[in-house]
């Protein structure tokens, strides 16, 4: 099978500011002064005419912690609103919400090293071998050290090749599976009674909730054989130490937060949390999506993950910043797009995000962005979103052209350092935000990224112990690190094991969540379940990964199992029409035996070639606002012969 040579669209760097005098005119080059003045004027006009809540900031999970800190400070101090969010909304917001609800802190509980020294690894809805390859090397070390791995995924991924057992569940049936595992553990008497009694609440209600989910009912609903569910339950409950890892297969559902809670319940049931080698670990998908949330670039938390509703936290920040902070949560990215629809949101400052291509139901997202009065995009490329802007500000690439820090999946804050001189007139994000702030009457002087970091450290107890010097010395430190001398523990929530209730802190509640099938049901006209994900060599909307020549790249395909390909009479490379209830795309076929009949797979890596997000559904999680990228209903039709491109 010859791979087609399809070079993805490559973007060139933005080198000077762009403005347009009217929406229907093309961009023209502008001076920094003009562009910044226009950006600031638009925000000022919006605030004066419609109040602070008509403004929203999309901060960037690619950029440094320092930039995210300044971006949320701009939103809260200069504009006076809490409407700040980032693409965490499209991936792991449910993990953060679920973990906070259970443990009061939104980070994975373990470090990578612990997965090398554990007895059981459950990879739930995660193809880490492709999406987090270097984390998976730690898992492989664990497997070589004798750990067993269980893979729970609708597709038999290359991660599953290493598994003791692969549980190929139907898309969107994670809660029944988790509940059945929980029920089996309780009925076999394998739950950790002492831990449940001391460190959790709501066990009786949970036991009642999972009671109906017998192995045979779960088999009917999830498609996983009862024996395999039972085996996983017993393996997880009897392991000395176990790590439960998940990614977007869990979170990108309309009830993603519930899914996360259902998994956390299993760790509470067995006491697999708060010990070395035992924990729950969401693997984050963007280099600084953890840090963006930690820095307060989310609508419900101040920097250091401090709740906005807590007056004591607000007062601390109000004193430091000399500005009043709204005592209510701002809009999530999802709310923002809905508010655009109703005309409540009129100005957006979008830094390094590409919602025109990354939002589910992208056509609707584009329509909503076009309706804004004022859109300022700050990016390194002229992305699809930037093409719609009134003002485009050329920024630097955070990871290679600025100094600062980022926070990874194991909560490790690490130094980022400038290696390249930025092109043309591009300027650093923080520098640009401060310039816009200055034009709105706020004169912030940060000497460098370290000055920003030190301001944050003074306000966030979790980060206080992390000076730049220490980060350098230890190759990164994991939060919480409140002390300048002591090294932090590698895992969170060890407190749950304290015998003294005062030290133990608040008990972790079981999440009482019910099964709720995907919104976009399959039926006779849309018989195939489409799920989405990542491939090894590509990334998100392809803006970054399109820039290099990967020998593995085949462009975008709709992947079907051999049986389905035969049933529809299609062969590899043949273009077919793929329709959902929202849109239609044409894509070539690829056959992948990892799939099962009735399940298709696509990515969003090549939106200029095949815009997968025209198919996906915007139904989203009411708690975290993450869309159901993982479950759409589609149909596949052969194209009439005349339409087949040679």
């Amino acid at each position, binding site marked *: 099978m010859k791979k087609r040579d399809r070079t993805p669209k490559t973007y060139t760097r933005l080198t000077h500011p762009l403005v347009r005098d009217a929406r229907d005119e093309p961009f023209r080059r502008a001076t920094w002064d003009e562009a910044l003045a226009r950006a600031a004027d638009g925000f000022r006009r919006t605030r004066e005419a419609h109040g602070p809540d008509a403004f929203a900031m999309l901060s960037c999970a690619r950029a440094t912690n320092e930039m995210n800190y300044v971006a949320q400070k701009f939103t809260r101090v200069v504009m006076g609103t809490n409407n700040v969010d980032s693409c965490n909304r499209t991936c792991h917001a449910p993990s953060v919400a679920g973990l906070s609800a259970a443990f009061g802190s939104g980070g994975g509980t373990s470090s*990578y090293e612990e997965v090398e020294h554990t007895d059981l690894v459950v990879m739930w809805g995660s193809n880490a071998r492709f999406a987090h390859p*270097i984390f998976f090397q730690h898992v492989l070390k664990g497997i070589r050290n004798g750990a067993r791995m269980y893979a729970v995924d609708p597709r038999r991924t290359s991660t599953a090749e290493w598994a003791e057992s692969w549980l190929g569940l139907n898309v969107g049936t994670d809660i029944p599976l988790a509940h059945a595992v929980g029920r089996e553990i309780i009925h076999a008497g394998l739950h950790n009674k002492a831990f449940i009694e001391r460190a959790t609440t709501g066990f009786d209600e949970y036991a009642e909730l999972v009671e109906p989910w017998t192995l045979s009912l779960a088999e009917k609903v999830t498609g996983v054989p009862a024996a395999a569910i039972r085996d996983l339950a017993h393996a997880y409950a009897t392991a000395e130490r176990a790590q439960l890892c998940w990614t977007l297969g869990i979170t990108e559902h309309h009830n993603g937060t519930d899914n996360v809670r259902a998994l956390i319940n299993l760790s509470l049931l067995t006491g697999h949390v708060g010990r070395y080698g035992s924990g729950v670990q969401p693997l*984050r*998908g963007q280099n600084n999506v953890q840090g963006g949330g930690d820095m307060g670039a989310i609508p419900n938390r101040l920097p250091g993950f401090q709740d906005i509703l807590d007056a004591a936290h607000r007062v601390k920040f109000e004193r430091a910043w000399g500005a009043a902070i709204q005592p209510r949560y701002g809009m999530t990215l999802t709310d923002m797009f809905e508010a655009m629809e109703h005309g409540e949101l009129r100005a957006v400052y979008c830094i390094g995000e590409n919602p025109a291509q990354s939002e589910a139901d992208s056509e609707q997202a584009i329509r909503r962005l076009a309706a804004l009065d004022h859109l300022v995009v700050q990016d390194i490329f002229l992305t699809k979103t930037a093409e719609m802007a009134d003002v485009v500000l050329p920024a630097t690439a955070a990871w290679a052209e600025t100094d600062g820090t*980022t926070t990874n999946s194991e909560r490790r804050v690490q130094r980022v350092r400038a290696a390249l001189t930025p092109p043309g007139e591009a300027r650093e994000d923080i520098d640009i935000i401060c310039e816009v702030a200055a034009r709105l009457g706020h004169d912030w002087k940060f000497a460098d990224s370290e000055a920003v970091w030190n301001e944050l450290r003074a306000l966030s107890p979790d980060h206080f112990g992390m000076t730049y010097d220490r980060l350098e010395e230890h190759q990164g430190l994991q939060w919480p690190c409140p002390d300048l001398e002591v090294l932090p523990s*590698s895992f969170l929530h060890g407190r749950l094991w304290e015998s003294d209730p005062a030290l133990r802190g608040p008990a972790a509640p079981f999440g009482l969540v019910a099964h709720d099938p995907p919104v976009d049901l399959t039926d006779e006209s849309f018989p195939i379940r489409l799920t989405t994900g990542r491939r090894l060599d590509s990334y998100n909307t392809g803006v970054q*990964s399109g820039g290099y020549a*990967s020998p593995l790249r085949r462009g975008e395909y709709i992947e079907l199992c051999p049986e389905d390909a035969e049933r529809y009479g299609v062969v590899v490379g043949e273009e077919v029409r793929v329709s959902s209830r929202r849109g239609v795309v044409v894509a070539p076929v690829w056959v992948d035996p990892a799939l099962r009949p009735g399940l298709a797979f696509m990515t969003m890596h090549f939106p200029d070639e095949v815009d997968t997000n025209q198919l996906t559904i915007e139904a989203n999680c009411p708690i975290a606002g993450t869309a159901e990228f993982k479950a759409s209903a589609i149909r596949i039709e052969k194209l009439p012969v005349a339409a087949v491109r040679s």
Partner: protein
Amino acid sequence: MTAIPLGVPRRLVEFTLDGQEARVPEGATILDACRAAGKDIPTLCQGDTLTPKNACRVCVVEVEGARTLAPACSRKAEAGMEVRTDTERARHSRKVVLELLASSVNLSTTPRAAEWIKEYEAKPDRFGPDAARVDEEPRVDNDLYVRDYDKCILCYKCVDACGDQWQNTFAISVVGRGFDARIAVEHDAPLTDSACVYCGNCVEVCPTGALSFKSEFDMRAAGTWNEAEQTETTTVCAYCGVGCNLTLHVQDNEIVKVTSPHDNPVTHGNLCIKGRFGYQHVQNRD
């Protein structure tokens, strides 16, 4: 490193190294002890992230009472042993190893090889021009890396890095037997038809430049590769959330190569295809 349970404290082993008292933790190798004492022992096949393969034999030292020379990289220090690193016999052995290697393999891009050849007075030309082992053109079959087996010393580091020690892809193996043994992908196919996932972790450990990044290979061919002009900056990868550390090698404001720090707790010197090669987007400047 973060605070971790350190396990049982290790005893110190005391032994004699070139007549000096040396004390190293139990389990340390002679090479570890030499490096701790500031002794410069040549090594080629030893990798700080890999289990010793004992393939190249340039690090041999003399152990009192042993019949043969011992490879310092894998021989564990034992209490009371007497080790001499710079004896006539060890030096002679290293000299012959360097002669055999340099006569049959192209060591032009092997760091320090020329220096060692001079130090041990090795004469690579003593076996004449017929000694070349492979004598083939570099294999350029993809845009990311080049395999130039004329430079391969069969140290097996790439086999280990691609195999069960790190990557677990098993794209690289040894084919042939005896003198015909060489490194290849399955069925000696082009890389693009193999299991290779282009992580470049084999290139990271290759000691001679037999495996090299295409960017470096092309620049060397054009005569523009200049390490003296390069800066090395360690930063964090811009793709997924694992947080791998990258060392960007920059020449004339262009990233020319990406490596990964070997002592880093996240990566241990490894990367995936995106982290290693996915940097081009920041330098598409016009």
